[in-house]
């Protein structure tokens, strides 16, 4: 989700990402926003995202995260995998008894 958000919005700071995820999920995913930061660090360690200091929309120092090439590739693979899983689950959910007979 973080990767996708960054992919769609480009460079973004922590709050922006959290806000965006909330919005996209329609406020259904209202976890503690703080849990985002360890995750961001982990992704950064894995090389999927990079970060640098920048200036936020209200002219304050903020840390901006952006997707790296590796992150983009990872996003693609994970998207593909997720779609596969979703498709399989979907098939299971839609199965009716007459289909199997």
């Amino acid at each position, binding site marked *: 989700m973080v990767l996708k958000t960054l992919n769609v919005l480009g460079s973004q*700071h*922590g*709050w*922006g990402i*959290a*806000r965006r995820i909330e919005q996209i999920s329609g406020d259904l995913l*209202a976890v*503690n*926003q*703080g*849990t985002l*930061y*360890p995750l961001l*660090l*982990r992704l950064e*360690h*894995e*090389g999927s995202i990079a970060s640098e200091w920048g200036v*936020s929309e*209200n002219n*304050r*120092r*903020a*840390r901006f995260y952006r997707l790296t090439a590796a992150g983009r590739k990872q996003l693609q693979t994970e998207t593909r995998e997720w779609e596969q899983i979703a498709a399989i689950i979907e098939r299971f959910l839609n199965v009716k008894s007459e289909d199997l007979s």
Partner: protein
Amino acid sequence: MKFLRRFFIRFSNLATGRSADQRLQEEIAEHLALQAEENMRAGMSPAEARRQAALKLGITQAIREHHHAEQSLPFIENLLFDLRYAVRMLLRSPGFSFIAIATIALGVGATTAIYSVIDATLLHPLPYPNPAELVCVVDDLPGVGAHRVGISVPEWRDLESSGIFQSVSITGTGANVNLTGSAQPLRLSFKQVMPNYFAVLGVGAQLGRTFDANDATPGYNLEVVISDGLWRREFGADPHILGKVLRLDNDEYHVVGVMPRGFRDQGSTSEEQNVELWLGAGFAGVPFPAPQRGTRLRSRAVIARLKPGLSIAAAQGHLNALVESLKKQYPGDYPPQTEWTIRLVPLSETVVGSVRQSLILLFGAVGLVLLISCVNVANLLLARASVRGREIAVRQALGAQKTRLIRQLLTESLLLFLLGGIAGSALLLCTQHLLLRLIPESLPHLNDISINWGVLGFAVAVSVAAGTIFGLTPAWITSGVDLIGTLRQEGRGSGGSRQRSRVRQILVISELALSLVLMVSAGLLLRSFWDLFAVQPGFNPDRVIAIQTWLPGPNDPNVDMYRTATQESVLVREILRRSRTLPGVEEAAIGDEASLPLGHRDPGGLPLIREGIETMENQAPVIDSPIVSPEYFHLLGMPLERGRLFSDEDLEDTPQVAIINQAAARTYWLNQDPLGKRVRLRLDTRGLPGSAKPAWTTIVGVIADARTESLADAAIPQIYRSVYQRSAKDLAIFLRGQLDPSTISTQVRTQVRSIDPTLPVFHAETLDEVLYTSLAVRRFSMEMVAFFAATALLLAGLGIYGTISYLVNEQRREIAIRLALGAQRGSILNMVLRRGLGMAAAGAGVGVAGALIVSHLMAGLLYGVSATDLPTFAGVTLVLTMVALAASSIPALRAMRLDPIATLHAE
């Protein structure tokens, strides 16, 4: 990939101590500000907006912790904390740390020392590529009780073409040769080998080449490969050595190659491993007998390399089939009653098999010492745990997890054991030269014993394993304290739990039991050694010196100036005459190497063909047959039982006579009179014209049995022949008298040289020395086990002392109350001593059971004492009980002298 990248970044963060905490705090502040703004936009009051923002973010401290955990490696970080704490704990009680580390150092050091010996011998017996493929091929004739009878050249051809082996090589067993032409004639160890010998071992030359396997000649091919040592010593590492001519036993050989440094021949004795010359030979032509199926090459070894991937068992199966088919094909050469078989023995077994049992015993003994020292340290840890109970309880009360506590305690004990292991290794490194001197010279691969990385790795592994096992138990028990009880009790200054003291008692009992096992083993070995030492050898080694010489045996018998006994007797008589004139010499005699009592190489034996019983050499039993001069028996004090001794009139052209010992008479002429019986010993055809059959030899005397082969073996059949009737190349000069070993060798050399300047004179040894060295391996293992047993006893004494002191300390309130209520001081003493005795009795009971098992396992190493020797068991148990009593009497006395008022006040 990603995981690795993440790990490395975290690791470098850990190593550089970089923290992202500042950055996170800034980010969080920014986050809160943004969220608050958003909230205010939604119409909240500023205070409420900030509150909601903080709520939405979650607990800042938890986030920081998570963030930190992601930033670095919490496991290693905790480990470092634990380590730092452990070091501080060790430094805080230096006495405890020192004793614990010293105990472990002793255990690990001793174990590592023995392991280094085992590493060089049992684990790496053969310094060749793919040693598992190397086998020794042994021919037996079990039907006639003959073993290691040797192979014939046609049989060798059958083996070569059998498809079982990559190649098969017949080799000599190592012998002496005279290198002449340099300043002094040298006697060198040499081995005749088939040209494919080095191919079988899989080793090439460092200079030149080894023998060309396709270039086999029936006899010697007059090429020699020399060792690196000889090349450097005698030829100054001459790079132009190839093609040089060496005069060996008056024959000329061309040097074709120099073996690499560090290459040594296989063999079970250091002498065999020190072979310096390898001569290529085909074993099928002059001077070897003609290659007939029935002509076994005696005292030759056969080594072979199996086809890759073939197990010895599978190869043996193929071989058995081959033997069966050969028996059918040549029924005349393999009479069924001889039951000819071929065995494959791993080559490593022939090299180190003889010392395996001793070394395993030593390793077991040292393992027990290690176990005892670990138990002792575990005991100490437990004792300290009672002191630290309060600390642990407080930490637990503050919320420390049990696993976290165990981890920390384990870190402490691991640190302790590792330090002990390092100290032990360091001690070993410092003392290794001293220790190496203790090892008997007869141990194979003595020179390979070293403290290498593998050995050090072993020390570390042992320390870590011991630290984990023996640290875990105390850690588990310590961390499992009863929180409320301890905190409440500790306030009063006394503590400890029943469980803990029970564990300690069990530990002490096992220590006592283990040391009893060790002491019984040591006692049995000591008694065996003593019995062997005190055994009547049957000959008198007193004031006798043996000095060896070697007559050259050129390949062409016609140029051999000592070819016949008559030719040789001139030399022998002259040596004897001149020796008797030397100062101090009372008696002199001459024999061949087989006549040297003890310590000589396995002479190989000759088939004994009794007139009218055996008709073929193939069926004959094998007997040792020393060659001696008539004075030999008197000089060594071996009494004649019947018949007569040799006389100076028994010459080559008079009827051949022989003297046997009682063992031979019993074995081969049971209930018969051996005198006058005629036998024929298969003789080397060397020295005999054509294919003439050797003449019959008549037995003229029987001498008393003597333990000339091995002190442990009462009597091995021997048949002696006179040097005046039968020539021998490997001569030993025996001298009895008031002799100075340092000068006699030079004096004899001068005398021998003045007769024949090409003869080397070497290896002067008193028979007492020979006797002594023949027991060297036994003495070594006995001394080591005794040393380990003493160590074990000391540790066990310390253990019981510590535990009783601890118990007394724990009970001092009880004792004080008893005393205050009027208990007799004597009964207090009794009470404590009974505790110690109880533990000693339990330990002795378990120990005796263990010792019985162990002593049966080592029955093969015992001599003259049964594995259940009552005096040994009783004596050792008594000693152990005394030590336990002595160790517990100190705290018992302390308990007795307890001042009840002071104690109760202090409480």
